[in-house]
């Protein structure tokens, strides 16, 4: 049953990613197809997660691959907040290919199967994993917005004559949305880390590499928010800082799973 839900979700995300490519070349029908692909894919993945939750003995996404599955769901869900608007379709070009690849990785790692058990308490995992993944999804979206900002900024600086052919959100709007997304995601990460630290103190254990990189990401995003709201830090450099923060998130998500999930 889980397989029956996984493949349509992956196909829908894949279709959306390809359709967004088509939209970048020729805006119109491809954009609508992409939006529907995202909607359908997300609904099917929601059903997959519900099935996993119903069948699992304990928190079903406590493995690296399982958490990747949940992470993709958070990212696409967050994208859907704006992604259905025509002007934000180009954001899909940064988010959906990533979502499709990560979901495939999650499947390869066994994170989409409808069985599983956990060594940890459900409450701890829901709070820790849920909050950290929701925060990472927010940072991923913020990175997509920043990438879109840099692309749009470059088109404006180069005075590209085709700039009105593929319309994107205004620079000021992208900058504002990035700041808002991070302002929501960082408190979630803070709480997620706090829950993890509380458990560490309770049960003992050291700080691993993943925790160290997560803390580094927390500092980067914290610095961004302080500079943004305290000193009006905007524009290209702010976008680069957000992407630097995302690089750490990517390292945490993909390169360092072994230290934390073993």
């Amino acid at each position, binding site marked *: 049953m889980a397989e029956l839900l996984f493949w349509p979700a992956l196909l829908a995300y894949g279709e959306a990613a390809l359709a967004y490519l088509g939209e970048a070349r020729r805006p*119109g029908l491809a954009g609508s197809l992409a939006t529907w692909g995202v909607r359908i894919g997300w609904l099917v993945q929601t059903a997959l997660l519900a099935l996993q939750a119903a069948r699992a003995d304990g928190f079903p996404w406590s493995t690296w691959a399982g958490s990747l599955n949940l992470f993709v769901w958070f990212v696409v869900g967050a994208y859907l907040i704006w992604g259905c608007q025509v002007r934000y379709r180009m954001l899909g070009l940064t988010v959906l290919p990533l979502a499709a690849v990560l979901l495939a990785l999650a499947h390869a790692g066994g994170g989409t199967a409808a069985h599983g058990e956990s060594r940890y308490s459900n409450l701890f995992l829901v709070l820790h994993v849920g909050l950290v993944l929701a925060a990472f999804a927010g940072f991923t979206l913020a990175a997509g917005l920043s990438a879109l900002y840099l692309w749009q900024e470059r088109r404006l600086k180069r005075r590209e004559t085709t700039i*009105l052919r593929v319309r994107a959100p205004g620079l000021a*709007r992208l900058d504002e949305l990035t700041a808002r997304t991070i302002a929501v995601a960082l408190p979630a990460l803070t709480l997620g880390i706090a829950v993890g630290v509380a458990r560490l103190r309770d049960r003992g254990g050291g700080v691993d590499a993943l925790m160290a990189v997560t803390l580094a990401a927390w500092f980067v995003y914290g610095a961004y928010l302080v500079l943004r709201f305290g000193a009006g830090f905007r524009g290209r*450099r702010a976008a680069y800082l957000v992407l630097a923060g995302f690089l750490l998130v990517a390292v945490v998500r993909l390169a360092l799973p072994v230290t934390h999930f073993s």
Partner: protein
Amino acid sequence: MRIVLVGISHHRAPVELRERAALSREQAAELADRLKGTSGEAVCLSTCNRTELYLADESGGDAERRAEAALLALEADLGPALYRLSDEAAALHLFRVAAGLDSMVPGEGEILGQVRAAYDAGATGPILDRLFRQALHAGRKARVETAIGESPASVSSAAAALAEQVFGELRGRKILVIGAGKVGDLAARNLLSRGADIAWIANRTADRAAELAARFGGEALPLEHAEEQLVDADVVVSSTSASGWVLERAQVERALPARKGRPLFLIDLAVPRDLDPSIHELDGCYLYDIDDLQAVVAETLAGRRREAERAESIVADEAGRFREWQASLDVVPAIASLRARAEEIRAAELKRARLSESERKAAESVTAAVLNKLLHLPTIRMKEAAAAADGVIYADAVRHLFGLEDDR
């Protein structure tokens, strides 16, 4: 019934000629009423790019002469610029006009409303009613299914669209207009129509600045004070006749720290230019001069032309559908006569038969079914023949074979 079109347009008639043949809505309605005659139909479409008369009449030649005479009565020199089209070609032409494919700027949006207005004011009957309704449908369809009308077609609308690329929505954005000339006025209007506030108008002549400020609701400033507003302004539109830079890089640079990273979009519509081009190199500053804007417009117009190719096929399909409908009119009377004659025979035979009530009911139903089945195929074949232009031959054959000549 034949459809006839006689008209002039921007393709062959210069504005000096077109303006003499231009008609107000009332004049167009009056002319259409006059041209329709006793049994015909007429619509007069008059815009700044064209004056066209559409007539539907039994006698095409006579209708054409009447339309031509009506246009020549407006201006005797129109003769060489006149074009004449009939039936399918006239329909295709109107569909292209409604879709904006025959306009100076492909896909311009006003024409659809003008076609509707002409239709509303016209003296329409079944033919022109169908023709114009289908033309409006084709025009809407071309705009919905292609991007022919989406991109800006003028420098001022391109400037406003680019400002949206910087800020997203322009609602509440503050505009500093430098120079109170016509060009700046036009650009300001475009920004205003998208929700921006014209906050300041700086001009060398105080009276002109005050006049414009009163109209747009902004504050009039002497030109020297323009720099002071750079901290708060979001968009700067400059179009003075000054020979040197009105704003230099250093002036903008001074304002940047207080702007706290907010982007500044500068539009230089003046020739010679007003704004130091190196302003564009500053972080968060985007300066577009008249050449940059014209290049954007040229590209969007090229995009419109690409979309026009797709719109052409939509319009051609619609014209084909209209042709089929018009052709089917040739056989409709023959089909109606044939069915009426068959029904008449059936009713008479049933009346003659001695049947009980229940038997009559059964016979009614059986004979009606037989009749329908028998006439179904000839009806379909006649309509198909009409679409292939053989409708009249088939209709005549049916009338002859079934003795329907008297029903004409």
